[in-house]
């Protein structure tokens, strides 16, 4: 009797929707927002975003949210609030964090909503206040840093949420090669939403690509809501990780876009028809001029992409190795000389073909003891 009850309860407990972590990266590039201010001021975006966050928190008891600002020269946590650094303070950790959160204790507001709101507004305010004119020297945003921070945060949260004892887990992983553990774990379902307003991310090509690749490995979809500007990289991020890319024509309806397209998490998305970007631009940015190219020339040593084969001194600009251009045009003609040589070789040497002849024109010197 007990056994029957126990199994029933067990199945039910694992059946519920898994907790979902939504990480929002808010691009706070002042230049882009100044440009957008007539259509969509930052204040209304933040208001809409808070409604969206509340909707996310309300859709599941265990749901979590994290907000990161990708500013001009740095990234900043908007929620949760990081503890300020101060040496020799024994209890500063908890007190200072409450310092930001205890601004309002409104009885009419659901506590988690209020906490997110006060923290987010406090930190955003703080961020904008500490932005000096020196910071405004660059016009791009630190999207790579924000993505990296978000991914590390998600990875840590996933570890924290895995209900399986790590000791048990590793013995399973090592000794038995099977996937039956998956059924026992209720993993955190995470996703990243980027509210992007600035274009031209070619300077952060490699770190963004690393982040995309990491997200792909961890199966974290990256959703992009593109309010202004245009980047090839973020579109690729969506495509590689299975996220949603949206560039709304009228940004005024931001809240509706957020609610309709980005609220369902990965569990719900299986059942929905998602907005798709259709054809995706997969072109790469060349390393020499940051041009976006569709036929490029790639250094075989360091894989740098160049837009033209006419490099100065025919050396690679990144790794300065001397590059021959022969392979750049076509590799096909190599076929005919190969066949001729092979026959010669076989005729010349019996059981160990090619023992004497050096097969290719520029081959390695024999190292003989």
């Amino acid at each position, binding site marked *: 009797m007990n056994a029957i009850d126990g199994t029933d309860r067990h199945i039910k407990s694992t059946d519920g929707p898994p907790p979902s972590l939504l990480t929002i990266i808010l691009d706070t590039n002042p230049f882009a927002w100044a440009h957008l201010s007539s259509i969509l001021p930052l204040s209304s975006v933040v208001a809409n975003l808070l409604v969206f966050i509340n909707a996310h928190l309300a859709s599941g008891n265990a749901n979590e949210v994290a907000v990161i600002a990708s500013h001009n020269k740095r990234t900043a946590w908007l929620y949760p609030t990081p503890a300020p650094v101060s040496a020799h303070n024994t209890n500063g950790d908890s007190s200072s964090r409450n310092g930001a959160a205890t601004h309002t204790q409104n009885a009419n507001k659901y506590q988690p909503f209020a906490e997110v709101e006060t923290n987010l507004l406090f930190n955003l305010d703080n961020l904008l206040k500490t932005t000096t004119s020196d910071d405004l020297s660059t016009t791009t945003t630190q999207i790579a840093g924000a993505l990296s921070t978000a991914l590390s945060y998600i990875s*840590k949260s996933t570890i924290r949420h895995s209900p399986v004892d790590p000791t048990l887990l590793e013995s399973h*992983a090592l000794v038995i090669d099977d996937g039956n553990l998956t059924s026992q774990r209720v993993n955190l379902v995470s996703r990243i939403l980027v509210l992007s307003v600035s274009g031209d991310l070619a300077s952060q090509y490699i770190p963004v690509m690393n982040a995309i690749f990491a997200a792909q490995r961890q199966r974290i979809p990256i959703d992009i809501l593109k309010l202004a500007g245009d980047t090839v990289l973020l579109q690729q991020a969506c495509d590689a990780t299975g996220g949603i890319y949206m560039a709304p024509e009228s940004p005024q309806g931001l809240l509706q876009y957020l609610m309709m397209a980005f609220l369902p998490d990965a569990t719900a998305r299986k059942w929905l028809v998602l907005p798709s970007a259709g054809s995706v631009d997969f072109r790469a940015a060349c390393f020499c001029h940051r041009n976006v190219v569709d*036929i490029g020339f790639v250094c075989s040593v360091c894989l740098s992409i160049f837009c033209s084969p006419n490099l100065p001194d025919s050396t690679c600009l990144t790794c300065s190795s001397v590059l021959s251009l022969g392979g750049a045009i076509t590799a096909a003609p190599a076929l005919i000389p190969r066949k001729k040589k092979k026959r010669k070789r076989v005729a010349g040497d019996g059981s160990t073909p090619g023992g004497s002849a050096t097969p290719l024109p520029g081959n390695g010197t024999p190292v003989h003891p």
Partner: protein
Amino acid sequence: MADSDGEYIEASDDEYMGGGGSYGTRGHGKGKKGQRGDGRAKNAWELSAKTGLESYKESADGTIGKSIQEREEERKRKRWLVNTMLDAVKMPRRRRSVDLSIYERDPEPGIDYTMLPSLPYRTVSDPPVPRAVLLRKWLRKDTKAFQRGIIRHVVLVLDLSEAMLEKDMRPNRYFTMIKYTQEYVREFFEQNPISQMCVMGMHDGICIRVSELSGNPADHISAIQGLRDPKSSTSKEPKGSPSLQNALEVSRATLYHTPSHGTREVILVLGALLTLDPGDIHKTIKSCVQDRIRVSIIGMGGRMHICTEIVSRTNSGDESGYVVATDQELLRELLLATTTPPVIRSSVPTTDGAAAPAESGASLLQMGFPSRVIEDVPTLCACHGNLTRGGYTCSRCKAKVCSLPATCPGCHLTLILSTHLARSYHHLFPLRNWIEVSWQRAREKGSKQCMSCLSDFPEPPSSHTENAAESLTSAANGAVAAATSHIIAANGRQRSGDDSNEDELATASESFRYECRECKSHFCIDCDVFCHEVLHNCPGCLGGAGTRNDEESADTEMNG
């Protein structure tokens, strides 16, 4: 140790039962396959011990029946598990559990482990240190920016001789090898998307070709699966003796026409302790050296002189390519270690001056970065001739191909995604290792939370209690580990600016903080592993923490 041994036996039995049960349900769905698997399995494992046999049978045919998709998922999960495992090893408080899994993992009755040669790997006298060191080394090895051969041409030679029926790996070497090589092929192409591979087998004195040289992992995996699937025509039972000479000759012929800008590698998994050659293997070695083929060998059981010679001669004196797997985890680790692209050596100046510069053979390759199209009407693809609705159009001739990376069937342009290239960037621009942080340094910085995941660090102890705390830690960690870590931490503090201590033994940090040398941010161990293993970015450096360090107050720096 003795009582933990007993515990572990019980635990592992439970695991096996659990594993068998879950696969039992799967087995019903695919009954035919399952029966076949059983029948075949009997040949191989007749003599094996009773414990755990059931579950292994089940898991074996489960593996056969699994689709590639499932395998992919499993693989990804496992990678994650390994990550968490690494983490567990580095955290001193979890060390004990690691010891159990590594050192007392073979409770199988019927095998007398005292008969095995006493390798340092298996000694239990001082368990935590060697294992942690091994893993840390594995994590920390490629931090220097070497020139690496990114475009690789690899022949993977598997031993299919009767030595593979040995049961020192379970269920036996052959099945273990087949299982891990499938995983290996996936990982290889994930790490080296623009490389080519070919799989061969040494079977009954000759070298057979399992799959052709190609860049498609699915081909290789299905071919390797076909080796052990009794239904397929290419099925091979391990038989006879291996021949290293034949294997090298066939590999050399396969790699002969590969372009000079790529590497030519042979990776041999050798279970036997003999080689049955038709001629003089030294001639073959010499011609391999001439064709600049690099051989690395993963042996089993013991070392062989001829293997040492092959590896050292083809790798210009470096013998590190010859390793011996003493158990199956080590085999897996050693296999996966070869997914990292090999270091390119500068050409040796010789009397024959003409040949030297061409060794590196760098060249500029023309590649297309096609865009994906989605069509309303299905059209024929140029690669298979199937009707498909979408695909990638060649940037030069507009032919449509189904998947990337590929060579355009129309104009022979190499078509890849820029993401494929980007996957290799972290080999070329590796993230520098983060250093351990002493309590003193932690107090100086006053860091309370991990920079990227905001998890709390433990408070640094006040100065006068520090000594007491340290002695406590050392008691917990095992004296050797703590002492080493203390020394290393001290060294790191003194010389944190320079590169000289990169190769040093890396151990767990006493303050649970790890510091990036560039931006001086502090991170937790989980983020350390994640950033170096998966992300290859430093959130602190990219987040602008380094630039603000000098000018701003500590408060804004942590926010930033």
